[in-house]
């Protein structure tokens, strides 16, 4: 059985990609968030737009904020989104 990675999208990342999230085959523990973003960017027009400027993205792995150079490790849920604007 291949491990899955659930990916979630929020705010304009979600809008550009056109979906809330998706499950993919886990790309491997040694893959970084930034590397996965580069892989996802090749999936089509909406992805390319969402991920055109990776420096504008933020990430949470298993519901903890991580920098983009963090490795996926055994993480099961990765969220990608713009900087937060609550409060």
């Amino acid at each position, binding site marked *: 059985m291949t491990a899955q990675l659930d990916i979630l999208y929020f*705010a*304009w990342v979600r809008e550009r990609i056109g979906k809330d999230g998706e499950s993919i085959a886990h790309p491997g523990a040694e893959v970084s968030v930034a590397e996965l973003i580069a892989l996802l960017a090749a999936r089509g027009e909406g992805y390319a737009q969402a991920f055109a400027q990776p420096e504008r993205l933020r990430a949470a792995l298993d*519901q903890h904020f991580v920098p983009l150079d963090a490795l996926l490790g055994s993480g099961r849920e990765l*969220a990608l989104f*713009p900087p*937060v604007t*609550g*409060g």
Partner: protein
Amino acid sequence: MSLVSITVGEADFDPASLLAQLEGLGGGAVASFTGIVRGGDGLVAMRLDHYPAMTEAQIARIVEDAQARWPLLGVIVVHRVGELHPGERIVFVGTASAHRGAALEACAFLIDWLKTSAPFWKKERFADGRATWVEARAEDDATRDRWG
């Protein structure tokens, strides 16, 4: 044991009953901050999205950080999501302590961190039909970072 109450949802809230809970904890000092949707610039409505599986846990971490820094008897955080209009409340942070400095500083700390480190995103809709995601402000990060 101290009171910690975190609520994330669409419903409005009553600052009075939240303050009453904090006033009843036996401390001498209660501080609060309420954030409200500002009108102007043709703003018609705001939509607040969030990351449901993470939001409350992340706010709880921020509250724990505040508790580690100040002797707090109680913390109440309410953050609304969904569609909000000018004049409506967005967020409430209330703190109780035996010391006024602790209550006031923790209240400011909590709202500064909520703004920059909790998974909420605002989209503004204007009278002319534009709808834009609010951009995070470097100034808010700087305000947060002064807490060191």
